[in-house]
């Protein structure tokens, strides 16, 4: 666990030091933490993907409450908006947003930035909580997904950059969808219903909804360079 002192930021002077600090935290990530805290951050602006990753890293390695506060400021209002959009009442959406932030704090060490962007990871946490909540209400039960497998302790810088780029490209890719395509994709996430119910609510044949989803997914794939 890194204490927020300046010592660990200095370049290692001997091979022993290098080994020791590598065991504590990947050296490649250390300067980033400090950049996150020391740079004049505009805390009212939305956090970009790279800042989210750095702050979750700080929460994981130093239980840094200041970093958590910044993450809370960014994610909690968006989580609440997401659940309101998915049709939850104000109180339930608020509770899910708070629970998600609590789990973000507890599970931060399991976040593997080489596998998914920070927002994607937060989305998976809140999705699983929503599934749990639905289960407690005994409504038709969607499936709880298990926690992520253990994180790779030292993701390569290359993997981090790739994943970060992908998160940014995904947002760009969503903007290239037609309004109708984006609508069915959003409904897939916001409406707690199978595609047949989406078809009913849009008054479209099921085949049309399915083919729109297929076109949208194909489009996203093209935008992401065939990796989806």
């Amino acid at each position: 666990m890194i204490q927020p002192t300046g010592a660990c930021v200095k370049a290692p002077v001997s091979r022993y030091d290098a080994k020791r600090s590598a065991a504590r935290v990947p050296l490649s990530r250390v300067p980033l933490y400090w950049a996150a805290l020391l740079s004049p951050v505009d805390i009212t602006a939305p956090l970009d993907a790279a800042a989210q990753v750095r702050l979750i890293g700080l929460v994981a390695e130093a239980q840094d409450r200041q970093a958590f506060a910044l993450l809370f400021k960014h994610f909690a209002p968006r989580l609440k908006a997401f659940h309101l959009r998915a049709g939850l009442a104000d109180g339930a959406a608020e509770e899910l947003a708070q629970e998600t932030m609590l789990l973000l704090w507890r599970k931060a060490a399991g976040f593997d930035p080489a596998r998914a962007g920070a927002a994607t990871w937060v989305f998976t946490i809140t999705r699983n909580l929503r599934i749990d909540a639905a289960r407690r209400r005994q409504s038709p039960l969607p499936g709880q997904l298990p926690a992520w497998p253990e994180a790779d302790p030292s993701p390569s810088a290359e993997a981090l950059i790739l994943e970060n780029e992908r998160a940014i490209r995904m947002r760009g890719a969503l903007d290239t969808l037609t309004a109708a395509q984006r609508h069915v994709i959003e409904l897939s996430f916001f409406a707690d219903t199978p595609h047949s119910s989406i078809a009913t609510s849009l008054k479209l044949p099921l085949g049309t909804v399915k083919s729109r989803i297929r076109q949208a997914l194909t489009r996203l794939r093209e935008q992401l360079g065939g990796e989806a």
Partner: protein
Amino acid sequence: MSPRHHPTHHPADATLLRLAAGTLNAGLAFVAQAHMHGCAQCRTRIAAFEAVGGALLDSQPPATLAPTAFAAVLARLDETPAPAPAPRQAKLNLPPDTVLPPILATCDIGPSLWLGRGVRFNKLRLPGTAQAGAPQTNVILVRAAANRPIFRHTHTAQELTLILRGGYTDITGQYATGDTAESDATLLHQPRADAEGCICLLAFEGRLLLTGWLGWCQRRLGG
């Protein structure tokens, strides 16, 4: 599931999208997850769908939180969550080289039940569905001896099967270890275990309807 085998049959895009969005039926989600443990390709596919969810989340216009929200969460940061109870599992006596996906360790496994010559099944209970009356989480583990026909059946809704060991063949094709087979209410099929026998996980929405004399028994027993 043996790591040397690369699955050739995968869940459909629509199924994985619902899994990523969190709207897939619990049983189907469980089986799809078990498949993904052994299938890097599907892990990549779902990561992309989850990234769509992440992008949607990140692009939401912020909503107004309760003024006490942050204080309420801060006050709970040091709580320790209660551990989940250990699952209860019947002994399965599987062949020693069977590799089960780790997700199976999280659910209760009921006693073995007989369903025709050389065919046995166990009901699974998924974590979080322990309450009475939890509907729509029908997952069973089916074991069929070599070359035995597995009960002829159809479904009232979607079915997802994952082969854990051996394989089976039905009118839609041949499925081997690690493969998934998806079918819906339109398919009436009778899988037949391959020469190695077949162990598979089977999840279905709604009900599974047996036909033939087993179906007669099912209807008589009101099942």
